[in-house]
C-alpha cells in the first residue's frame, strides 16, 4: 500500500537544486583559483597545517578554464549562492520546516544509534520523523559551515577594505585556510548526502524533484541500510 505525501515544498526543491548547481560551480572555480597558488604559506614563510603545499588539484575537478575565468565565475556565482541560501533559510524559518532540522534532545545518542544500525550492530532502524538523526545533524550544520565559508570568502576577497573581518579570522593566510576547510566540509557532507540518497533512500529523489514521497517506502519502513532492503517490503 502506498502512502504518498508531499514532502518538500516547491521553494525547498528549487533552492535545493539551485544550491547544487551553484555550489558545484563555486567549488570547481574555487579549486581553479587555488591552483594558481596551491599553497597557504605567505611568501618567504611556512605554513603549519596543509600537507600538500605546492600540489595542484587535478584539472578535471576544476571549473572556469583559467584563473581569470574561474575568478569571474566565482565572484558571479557567489551572489546566487548567498541569495539562494537566504531564500531557503528565510522560507524554512517562516514556514516551520526548521522544526525538522534543529537538533532535538538526545540527538547525539540518536545519531550514535543510527551509526550502530548502519554498522549492523543494531537490528532495527531507529524511529525517526522526517529525517534521521544523522541527516538532521548534517542539514543543520550545512548553513553554519556555509556562513563560515561566506565570511572567510569575503575576508580573502577584500582583505584591506574588510580588514577587521580578515583580522578576526587570523589574517589573510588563515582566512584562506578556513575558506578551504569550509569548502572541504561542504564537499564531504554533500558527497555523503548523495551517496546515502542512492544507497539508502533513492525514493527521496522523487521528493526533491516533484515533492511526492511514499512513506511506506521510507528507510525506516524498509529497515534500509546502505545497499540493503532498497526494495519495498511486500
Amino acid at each position: 500500500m502506498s502512502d504518498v505525501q508531499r514532502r518538500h515544498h516547491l521553494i525547498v526543491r528549487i533552492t535545493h537544486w539551485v544550491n547544487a548547481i551553484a555550489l558545484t560551480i563555486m567549488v570547481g572555480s574555487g579549486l581553479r583559483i587555488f591552483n594558481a597558488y596551491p599553497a597557504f604559506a605567505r611568501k618567504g614563510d611556512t605554513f603549519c597545517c596543509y600537507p600538500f603545499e605546492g600540489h595542484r588539484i587535478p584539472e578535471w575537478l576544476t571549473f572556469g578554464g583559467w584563473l581569470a575565468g574561474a575568478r569571474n565565475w566565482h565572484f558571479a556565482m557567489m551572489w546566487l549562492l548567498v541569495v539562494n541560501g537566504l531564500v531557503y533559510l528565510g522560507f524554512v524559518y517562516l514556514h516551520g520546516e526548521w522544526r525538522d532540522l534543529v537538533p532535538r534532545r538526545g540527538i547525539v545518542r540518536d545519531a550514535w544509534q543510527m551509526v550502530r544500525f548502519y554498522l549492523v550492530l543494531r537490528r532495527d532502524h531507529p524511529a525517526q520523523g522526517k529525517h534521521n538523526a544523522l541527516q538532521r545533524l548534517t542539514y543543520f550544520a550545512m548553513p553554519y559551515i556555509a556562513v563560515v565559508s561566506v565570511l572567510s570568502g569575503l575576508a580573502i576577497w577584500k582583505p584591506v577594505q574588510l580588514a577587521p573581518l580578515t583580522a578576526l579570522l587570523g589574517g589573510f593566510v588563515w582566512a584562506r585556510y578556513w575558506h578551504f576547510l569550509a569548502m572541504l566540509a561542504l564537499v564531504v557532507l554533500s558527497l555523503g548526502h548523495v551517496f546515502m540518497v542512492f544507497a539508502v533512500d533513492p525514493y527521496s529523489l522523487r521528493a526533491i524533484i516533484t515533492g511526492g514521497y511514499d512513506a511506506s517506502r521510507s528507510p525506516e519502513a524498509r529497515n534500509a541500510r546502505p545497499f540493503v532492503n532498497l526494495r519495498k517490503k511486500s
Partner: protein
Amino acid sequence: MSRIWLPRRRRHLAEGLGIDRRAFLAASLRAGGGAAAALALAGCDSWTRTRAAQSWVRGAERWNERVERKIFRPGARNVPSARLAATGARFPAYFIGDQLPVWDEAARGVWRLEVNGLCARPQRLTLDELKLLPRTEARLEHFCVEGWSAVAVRTGVRLSDLARHAGVSADARYVDFQSFDDDYHESWDIESAMHSQTLIVYGQDGELLGPEYGAPARVYSPVKLGYKCTKYLTRIVFLAERNGGYWSDQGYEWYGGV
C-alpha cells in the same frame, strides 16, 4: 562495549547479505539523469562560453565593481601583523616582455616619469626630482591575484602629492599607469589612486628598487591586486574615461581591488 562483539549480536549480519543490487541499479539508473546533468555541468564547460553565460558573468563583474566602489574606504589602511617580516627579495620577478626590462639610458636618454592628461602642470620628473618630493614609507602586505601574499616596505611618493603638484583637474575620474615593459599598462579609478597608501615607489625594503621589481619606479597600492600596480613606469595619465589595461582587457577584473 564488549557486548557488540558477541555472536548473538552479529547474527543479523546475514540479513545484510540480502543486498538489493538489482533494485539499487534500477533506482540509480532512474536517477542517473540528474547525476549526468550535474556531471555535464561540471565536466563539460563549453556552455560557459555561450553568449548568455558570458554576459551573465560580465554583468556580475559590473555589479561587483559597484559593490567594491561602495565599500571602498579612503581611510582603510593596510597594516600587516608585526610578526611578519618583510620578504621583498622573495617576490617573484615579473614582466610581460621577452627579457627583463631595463631602461637603456644610452638609447633612450635619461628616464623621466611623465605626469599628464587632465592636469594644469604636466610633469616630466627624473628619478632625482621624484626623490625630492615628500617621501612616504609604508610596510604593506601585498596581495597577488594568484592568491599569495607577502610583506614589503615600500618607499616612494604619494600619488596624491604628485597629483597636487601637477594640478590635476576635477574632471579626472581615472588614471592610466603606463610602462616600458612592452605595452603593459593598467588604468584605475581615481579614488583608489588617491588613497593615502598609493605610492610611486622607487625603494623596497630599504634599497633602491631593483630591475626585477620594476625599476626605476612603479606604482604600488595596498588597495589593488598586484597586476593593477604597473611596474617600469613611464607615464601617468589622468583621464575622464577608463582605459582598460593589459590584464583587464584579457578577462581579469578591471577594478581589481582588495
